[in-house]
Structure formats: structure tokens, C-alpha cells
């Protein structure tokens, strides 16, 4: 019978990991992850418990003033602007015809700052990205859009989650 190394009791101790191929795999994973980071240009932070609606849209590389509508508040670039009661504006905060007082004031201040800093022809500054919970009623979305539109923000982008 042919004796194998197992039967002879001689264990080959010169067993080393193929470090070079492992490094190759790691480089590929690293490049893939770096590429994913670079292409996901839009940075969206949502409050806890918020779920965005889904769509099959592809493009996402836009910048603009981010407005987040959650169950309890409306935030502008992360700053709390208006209180909501179960997705609804409270009555004293609303103006006749739709817009909200604190929102209109906040939009007005930001718009004034933008116009002071940029050329009057710059249109990219009038863009609003609405990041709203899928359960929010249209009346709330309408109030936010009306408050923005009356301060010169006319380009609305609605943030969604891609796919189902």
C-alpha cells in the first residue's frame, strides 16, 4: 500500500495562506465600495420611524434645500421649523389660503440669504427637495409647497426610495 503523509505521520508544516490572492480580493472589494460611496452623491438623513414612498425612478444626483416632513415636525436642512400633530399642521400656524407661518418665515429668511449671496440668474438655488413620510396627507405636503412657492421656490423634487 502506498503510504500517504497522513499514514506516515509526517504533517507538512509548510502550509501558508495565499496572501497575494487574498490581497487581490480585498482590493476589488475596496474599489467596489469606494465607487458606491462616490456615486451616491445625495446625502439624506431621515428621522427615526420615517418611511419614504417607493418609486422606480433612476436619477438622484440633485442638490437643493432639503425639507423633511415627519409625523411630528417639519425640518429644514435638519433644523426644526414647525410642529406637526400626527402629520397635520396645528390651526394657529396656518395662514388663510394654505401656507404655514413659521415655514413661510423660514423660507423667506433662507431665500433672502441665497439672493444676497448669488447672482439673480442662478436658478439652482430655487430647488426644494421634499423628503416626506409616505403616510403624510397631501394637505401637509401642499402647505409646505405653498409656503416655499410664495417665497420663490418653484423647482420641487420629491425624494423616494428606489424599488419596492
Amino acid at each position, binding site marked *: 500500500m502506498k503510504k500517504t503523509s497522513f499514514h506516515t505521520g509526517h504533517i507538512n508544516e509548510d502550509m501558508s495562506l495565499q496572501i497575494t490572492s487574498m490581497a487581490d480580493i*480585498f482590493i476589488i472589494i*475596496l474599489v467596489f465600495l469606494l465607487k458606491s460611496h462616490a456615486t451616491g452623491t445625495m446625502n439624506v438623513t431621515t428621522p427615526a420611524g420615517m418611511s419614504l414612498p417607493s418609486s422606480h425612478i433612476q436619477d438622484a444626483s440633485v442638490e437643493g434645500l432639503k425639507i423633511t416632513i415627519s409625523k411630528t415636525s417639519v425640518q429644514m436642512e435638519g433644523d426644526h421649523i414647525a410642529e406637526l400633530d400626527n402629520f397635520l399642521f396645528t390651526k394657529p400656524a396656518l395662514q388663510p389660503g394654505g401656507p404655514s407661518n413659521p415655514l413661510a418665515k423660514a423660507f423667506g429668511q433662507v431665500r433672502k440669504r441665497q439672493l444676497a449671496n448669488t447672482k439673480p440668474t442662478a436658478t439652482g438655488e430655487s430647488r426644494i427637495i421634499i423628503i416626506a413620510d409616505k403616510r403624510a*396627507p397631501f394637505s401637509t405636503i401642499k402647505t409646505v*409647497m405653498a409656503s416655499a412657492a410664495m417665497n420663490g421656490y418653484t423647482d420641487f*423634487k*420629491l*425624494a423616494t426610495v428606489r424599488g419596492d
Partner: protein
Amino acid sequence: MSSYHAAKSHVPLNQDFELNMASIIDCFTVLIAFMLISASFVSIGILDAGVEAAGVESTTTTTPQVHLMVTLRDNNTMTIALSGKERLSQQIQRNSGYYDELKQSVLNIKSRWKDLNTVTVSAEGGVPYNDIIRTMDTLRPHLPYIAVGGIL
């Protein structure tokens, strides 16, 4: 005599050196772990929505022959209204498969009015935002310019 000179004169230069791969692998492992933790696996899409302002004249030189308006109502229905050279009003029940019915209606209208590429989406106050987005998502492949109505 220094050791350098000694090595130069007596020991031949060894060109068969190896990189210390273990430390490089360590760095890669840390980097990959960091990137995986900070990576976002949810990708964000953006729906373009214009605002249809009441009473404001259109700046376009050519007036569209027909105007399509889709209105979502609180009573779980949807109205597809066509105005202009053709007048049409169709009501759809907003149940689970209404997107297919909406798509079919829009395709029927598009077959008659090939230059139609604008639609106004409006809704009553209590309609969830998700329904509006799903409606816009259904309409967008056939009618690329979507305006949100009833804002101003």
C-alpha cells in the same frame, strides 16, 4: 569599516525580498469593515414635480391641444379628466390594482393625442403622499412632465 561597507564587499545583495502582506491585509480589513458599516444600502430616487400655479399664463408659445388632469380623492377614487379639444372624465376606484387601469387609460389617451406629454396631478387633503408618488411614478414613463396641482 562600517557594516555597510562590509556588506557591500562580502555579502551579495539579495534582490529576492518580499512585501510584508500581513500588515497590508490588516489595513484592507479595517478599511472594508469601515466602508461596509458606513455604506447605505437604500438608494434614493428623485421625482421631478413642477407646480401648476392658478391664474398664471403659460410661457410656452404652443398651446397644447388637450390638458390631462388626474385627481385623487379622499373616497378612494381617482378622476382622469381631459379638457381642450377633447373632453373626457373617467372615474377609477383606487383599489390594489388601479395603477394598471390608470396606465391603460393614459395609453388610450396618448394613442389619440401623441403630442400630449404633460399631466397635472392633484389630490384632496387626506390622500396619503404614497398614493400621489405611486400615481406620478405610473404616469412618468408616458407623460414625462408632471405638475402638482392645487398648490397655489
